[in-house]
């Protein structure tokens, strides 16, 4: 740091203060100069040190004062003469006697002896006094009498003779109010240890059930019922206490009792007594009520009637050997069984029922066989008579059955046996009989027509089937025979009806199915197109079909149609169901006032449930048939491509250009034309034209072009025909030509192309179809001129001439321009 002289700018404190005051600041003071921090710290340290020193001094002073006080106190307490201090008296005596130290010691010993004597005397005296005092006062001493009756916790064996044992009062709870009990700590410890040792000796099985009764076995307790295992003895009976009371008569503990002979005998005697008592009934406890208890009831045994008797009688009745006899015997049997069955309870015995059923079945089978045999025999004898006899017999049987009673037992007499086997057999025979019957229908019908009344079925596959059915009709009108036979009867009737129907069919062989094909054949055979249209819808349809405008229906289509019909039926059913549902709802609403809310809700719920179920069932066979078709503005079916194009156009609001539209329209027109044309013709009726020409010229051929140039042949006669009215000569020449009937060789040049396969059938030129929808010429071609048939101009011509109608025809067409679709011409 440089000194003040270097600091020109430094000003004194006074000047500074002046400036400060002028600036409005408080003046600085020299006194307020800062104190040195170190000095201050030193001061503080010094101060602290001084204080500590003062404190120490005062503490020391205090301690000294206390020490002095304590010493003073001690001095005050310890009065008297100390061991080392000589008695004042002795000191005085010694000083008086003037004896030396040795004599002094001797004297001290003497004195001590003397003092001891005195003390002993004093003590004896005191004792005497005490005894005297005690005797005088008669003070009660705590002695043997006081301990009388006090309980000792140990057994008498625990104390050995001649040994002192100190007994103390055992700890016991104050609140338990127990007697005082004496025990020796050592002995009780010993017993505890012994018990623990015993437990340890048993090992793991201590206190567990071992399965052996070694521990349980007690020879003294033989014959008496043990309650529980002996490991529970402690819990039940409590811990065995070995103890006695002081001053009481020596009691014999349990363990010792066993050892003593007399006690043992007595116990044994007691046991014997218990064992010999024969009152066992008390010891057996049952859960059931016994006689004499409240609520005890005795069920009386019902005596069951003997059930084997009727079965045996039945068996006798249906003895196979006895079945050879005739109907009277068989009719007698059911009456017997019936009476018997009435008496017995059939439901009682299932075995009996089974056996009865079996025997019944066998019997009826036998009967059927027998009847068959008889019938065959009769049939062999004579057909008419056989039938008669059969009928008679059956009637008699029926009567017998009805007379026998309408009960279940009556079945046995009847030949109708309803079990699965018979049903099976019956079905087989029916199936076998059905086709031949159909086959023979014709014969039967013929016979009927002839008027033969005795109809003898040719096929005897099931001879008694029909009669039986009839019999069922007669006898089982009440429906006793069962549903199986009812069905069989129906079958029979159906077969009868079939037979009749078949007969009719054969007699009149002109039902729709048979005839139709022929008719169609006829129509198609003479398919000259438009002729048939006028006949009616059917002919029109057939025509269309023939032309291919109506595609014949494929099996798939038929199937689809069938499905569609089903669906429509289903829809109708659905609608009907809906209507019914609605009606029901209305009804319930109408009846709503009468029934309460809950009932209505319940019904609603039930209805909904039912509806849901019905809907589920209805939709079981729901197979929707979706077939998307598109049509254009003319109603034509569109292919997917066309449909997409149309959709696209309508979507974008911009159609195809004029050229494309024109093309499409032309295509549609051509299609329409093709549809309108006759079946055997081209859209331009070229075939018709050819035919007409052929007729006119009388030649089946036509020259299309001649020579290499492909120029049209010049047919003079045609031209002349066109130009002037037919001359006779020309006509004859043409007729000559026609009569020659050879391929045309009119021209010198050979024909390059000859049509000779044109159908020569005369086409209906003036037909309505061709007349109304005369096709427009193809684009780029001029219409054919002079196409219409010319009426014969002169009436006066001969009929021969009239027949030869000449048709002018211009074969070659003049091309006006390039056709649209024509290929580019070769240059």
């Amino acid at each position, binding site marked *: 740091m440089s000194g003040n002289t270097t*600091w020109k*700018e*430094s*000003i004194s*404190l006074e000047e*500074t203060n002046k*400036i*400060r005051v*002028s*600036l409005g*600041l*408080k003046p*600085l*003071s*020299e006194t*307020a*100069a*800062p104190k040195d921090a170190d000095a201050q710290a030193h001061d503080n340290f010094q101060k602290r040190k001084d204080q500590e020193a003062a404190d120490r001094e005062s503490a020391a002073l205090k301690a000294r004062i206390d020490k002095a006080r304590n010493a003073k106190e001690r001095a005050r307490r310890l009065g008297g003469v100390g061991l080392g201090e000589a008695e004042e008296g002795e000191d005085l005596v010694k000083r008086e006697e003037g004896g030396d130290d040795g004599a002094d010691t001797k004297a001290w010993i003497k004195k001590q002896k003397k003092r001891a004597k005195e003390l002993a005397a004093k003590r004896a005296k005191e004792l005497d006094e005490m005894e005297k005092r005690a005797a005088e006062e008669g003070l009660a001493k705590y002695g043997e009498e006081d301990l009388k009756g006090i309980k000792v916790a140990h057994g008498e064996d625990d104390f050995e003779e001649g040994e002192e044992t100190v007994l103390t009062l055992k700890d016991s709870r104050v609140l338990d109010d127990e007697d005082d009990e004496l025990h020796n700590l050592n002995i009780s410890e010993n017993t505890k240890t012994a018990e623990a040792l015993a437990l340890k000796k048993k090992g793991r099985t201590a206190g567990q059930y071992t399965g052996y009764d070694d521990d349980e076995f007690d020879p003294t307790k033989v014959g008496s019922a043990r309650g529980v295992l002996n490991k529970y003895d402690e819990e039940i009976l409590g811990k065995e206490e070995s103890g006695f009371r002081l001053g009481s008569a020596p009691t014999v503990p349990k363990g010792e009792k066993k050892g003593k002979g007399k006690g043992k005998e007595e116990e044994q005697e007691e046991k014997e007594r218990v064992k010999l008592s024969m009152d066992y009934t008390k010891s057996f406890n049952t859960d059931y009520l016994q006689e004499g208890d409240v609520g005890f009831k005795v069920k009386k045994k019902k005596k069951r009637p003997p059930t084997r008797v009727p079965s045996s009688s039945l068996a006798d009745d249906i003895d196979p050997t006895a079945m050879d006899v005739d109907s009277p015997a068989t009719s007698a049997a059911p009456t017997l069984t019936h009476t018997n069955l009435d008496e017995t309870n059939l439901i009682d015995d299932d075995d009996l029922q089974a056996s009865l059923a079996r025997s019944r079945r066998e019997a009826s089978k036998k009967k059927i066989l027998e009847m068959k045999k008889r019938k065959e025999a009769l049939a062999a004898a004579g057909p008419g008579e056989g039938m008669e006899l059969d009928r008679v017999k059956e009637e008699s049987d029926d009567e017998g059955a009805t007379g026998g009673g309408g009960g279940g037992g009556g079945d046995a007499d009847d030949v109708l046996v309803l079990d699965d086997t018979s049903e099976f057999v019956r079905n087989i025979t029916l199936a076998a009989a059905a086709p031949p019957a159909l086959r023979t229908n014709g014969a039967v019908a013929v016979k009927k027509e002839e008027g033969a009344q005795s109809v003898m079925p040719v096929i005897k596959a099931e001879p008694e089937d029909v009669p039986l059915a009839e019999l069922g009709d007669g006898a089982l009108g009440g429906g006793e025979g069962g549903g199986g036979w009812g069905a069989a009867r129906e079958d029979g009737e159906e077969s009868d009806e079939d037979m009749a129907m078949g007969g009719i069919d054969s007699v009149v062989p002109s039902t729709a199915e048979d005839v139709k094909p022929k008719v169609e054949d006829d129509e198609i055979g003479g398919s000259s197109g438009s002729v048939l249209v006028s006949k009616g819808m059917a002919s029109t349809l057939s025509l269309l079909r023939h032309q291919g405008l109506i595609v014949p229906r494929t099996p798939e289509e038929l199937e689809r149609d069938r499905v569609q019909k089903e669906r429509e039926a289903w829809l109708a059913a659905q609608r009907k169901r809906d209507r019914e549902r609605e009606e029901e709802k209305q009804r319930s609403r109408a009846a709503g006032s009468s029934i309460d809310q809950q009932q209505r809700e319940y019904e609603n719920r039930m209805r909904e449930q039912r509806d849901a179920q019905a809907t589920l069932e209805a939709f079981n066979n729901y197979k929707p048939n979706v077939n998307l078709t598109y049509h254009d503005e003319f109603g034509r079916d569109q292919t997917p491509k066309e449909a997409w194009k149309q959709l696209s156009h309508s979507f974008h609001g911009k159609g195809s250009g004029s050229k494309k539209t024109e093309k499409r329209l032309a295509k549609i027109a051509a299609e329409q034309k093709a549809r309108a044309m006759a079946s055997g013709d081209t859209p331009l009726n070229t075939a018709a034209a050819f035919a007409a020409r052929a007729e006119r010229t009388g030649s089946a051929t036509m020259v299309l072009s001649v020579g290499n140039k492909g120029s049209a042949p010049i047919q003079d006669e045609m031209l002349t025909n066109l130009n002037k009215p037919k001359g006779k000569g020309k006509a004859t020449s043409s007729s000559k030509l026609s009569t020659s009937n050879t391929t045309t060789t009119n021209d010198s040049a050979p024909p390059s192309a000859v049509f000779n396969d044109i159908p020569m059938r005369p086409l209906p030129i003036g037909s309505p179809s061709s007349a109304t929808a005369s096709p427009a010429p193809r684009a780029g071609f001029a219409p054919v001129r002079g196409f219409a048939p010319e009426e014969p101009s002169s009436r006066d011509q001969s009929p021969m001439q009239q027949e030869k109608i000449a048709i002018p025809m211009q074969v070659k067409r003049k091309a006006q321009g390039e056709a649209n679709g024509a290929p580019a011409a070769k240059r």
Partner: protein
Amino acid sequence: MTLIEVIANDRLGQKVRVKCDSDDTVGDLKKLIAAQTGTKPEKIVLKKWYTIYKDHITLSDYEINDGMSLEMQ
């Protein structure tokens, strides 16, 4: 409240030693410097490195002790 001496130095030839109080604000110090150097107090900027001292804060708050030097502009 102690008397301190602060050295203000612009490196252009002016170097003043100013006696002031530690409780004085920087603004007061500037006035004192201005009185001593003959400039305007509002023209003085006191700073130490890049810290420019603000007028309303006391010297003790800036921990400006006795004998410290400030840069003056």
